[in-house]
């Protein structure tokens, strides 16, 4: 399943980070590594951004980005 499709309030584990280059690096830096817990906190206006709790921080991602993360 993609992270973008996870419902609000659920907590999932990262299975794979399929982004590349710059974005991959950014994801890794934020702690989106294999096995990391990600909690889906909230969707923003127009369902454009979603807030996730990643490694204790609140990070907002667009759907384009969160679809690149495979989760369990």
């Amino acid at each position, binding site marked *: 399943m993609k992270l973008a499709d996870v419902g609000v309030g659920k907590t999932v584990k990262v299975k794979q980070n399929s982004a590349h280059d710059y974005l991959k690096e950014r994801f890794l830096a934020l702690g989106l590594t294999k096995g990391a817990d990600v909690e889906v906190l909230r969707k923003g*206006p127009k369902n*454009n951004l979603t*807030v996730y709790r990643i*490694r204790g921080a609140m990070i907002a991602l*667009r759907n384009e*980005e969160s679809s690149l993360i495979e989760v369990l």
Partner: protein
Amino acid sequence: MGLTAQSVKLESLRDIYEIEKNDKQYVVALAGNPNTGKSTVFNYLTGLNQHTGNWPGKTVVSARGQFKYKNNEYILIDLPGSYSLFTASKDEEVTRDFLCYGNYDTVVVVADATCLERNLNLVFQVSELTNKIILCINLIDEAKKKNIKIDKEGLEKELKIPIVLTSARNGQGMKELKDLIEKTSQIIEEETEKSLYFNQDESIREKISEDNYNYANKLKQKYVKEDVNKLNRDKKIDDIVTSKKFGIPIMLALLGLIFWITIQGANIPSQILADLLFGLQYKLDKILLILGVNDFIRGVFIDGMYKSLAWVISVMLPPMAIFFPLFTLFEDLGYLPRVAFNLDHLFKRAGAHGKMCLSMCMGFGCNAAGVIGCRIIDSPRERLIAVITNNLVPCNGRFPLIIVLSAAFFAFTGSFVDSIIPALSITLIVLIGVFATLSVSYLLSNTLLKGIPSTFTLELPPYRAPQVGRIIYTSLIDRTIFVLSRAAVVAAPAGAIIWLLANIYVGELSILIHMANFFEPLGRAIGLDGFILIAFIAGFPANEIVIPVLLMAYMSTGTLTDFESIDSLRQILISNGWTQLTAINVMLFSLLHWPCSTTLLTIKKETGSLKWTLAAFIIPTGIAFLVCFITANLYRIIW
């Protein structure tokens, strides 16, 4: 591949990273994730006033300061925040390069006590580069509020680096930090080349990050105790502040409220300042008379220089001194990233970057600062859009004009309901600016700067209680000094020039009148007049002087009046043919017209391109003329 000065052939860059120092001086670098309070640590240690705020990306260039401790002197470098040494947005590059090539004696990695797990990743990376490292776990007061307990000794033993728990904003742990800096700076490191292992193979780096984070997670489980209930505080606030339904309305209401307070509060101090300064003018004038100074020189000094100085201070200073502390309160609270969150969908549709919101907010203070702030945007295309459009946010120099004019022309009786109208009209002006920004971005990204929106990750930092007293004090002092120095440097000479132009005659008329007559048709076409256009042209070096220059131009041709109240300002303007349309169009023109000279120079520096600098001049100017032309004609049709 080792990332070192030699391998990347950055010899030419060495100067920037070689901090000049003598034998008794040590260079200390502050690194850390964005928004962990590096600048606060910096300010505490150096006594300087580096701008602080609760949002990631606030510091985009490194700041430098000094402090003495015991017998040594330390040069402190405040590096832009960075999540990792491998991700390279423009501001993060500065940090990475400095840590790889710089001649520092100690690195203090500042970490957020409330988010230690994420912060440790950078600690691991930096400790790979050097063993002269101190971990400063900051914001320990916030952690305490959230019932987070950190076992410092345990962590120290495990990581084998010195750790200090601090709360930089109230000085907690700072002496201990200085002691550690002293000790660590003395360590003599073997002259090895600092290098960072960078493997081209993504999967290997992924594995390293994974190991780093697993280790960080393990450390956190072992040495940090959290209280889950307290963690949810921010979540509850954000459920409302960034909700689909209330997010944008709350934002607009807050903006309106800030303007309302500014207008309400500015009136009385404005009058006090005016009484004081114009009273002084009268005395100065008398003294010069007694000294027998001739009329012409007296005119240049008193009616030209002093008067415009007094105008700038009494009209421009109070709104600034109220607006900016209020704005800073929200900034410190952590509200700005929420604004970016709420508005991202609009920017995305315009083909721009959501973080442009943050550089726009910086633009409120100063567009030149806003343009530099665009460095937080990673994609060059989107950064360029943000740079070119930044001017469409009214800055420090233009805000007072908008505030004063809306107070003069859109409040009638002074009742409470009435006082809301100017606040609404300013909010509307700002919204028009945002709308123009989005439209220009949309046009640019569909024509000259084609491309797809780049990736976007935005951290919403924890809310932090702002230090109300300190903010009010520092931003008041800050703004006062800023306005006063601009007044002295720009307003006084401009005042002298305008006075000369108004008093040197060519034929029947003064040079100023000749000029005004020349610009009159163009001015009329867009609902302004020749004098207003001259004032805007004179405002090119600093927009603060537009209103003073304009008044001086008007007064030099008719009656001379001093500033008594907003009402007297309106009287002067009305007697020079102003209508509500003129007021609206002056506000719009001020909002939309060309950037000031400082901003243009900054744009040239940031883009390195004359072409884009020119575009940044032409685009807003074109919009300003077009919009004012339209409103002027609409007004004439309707009324």
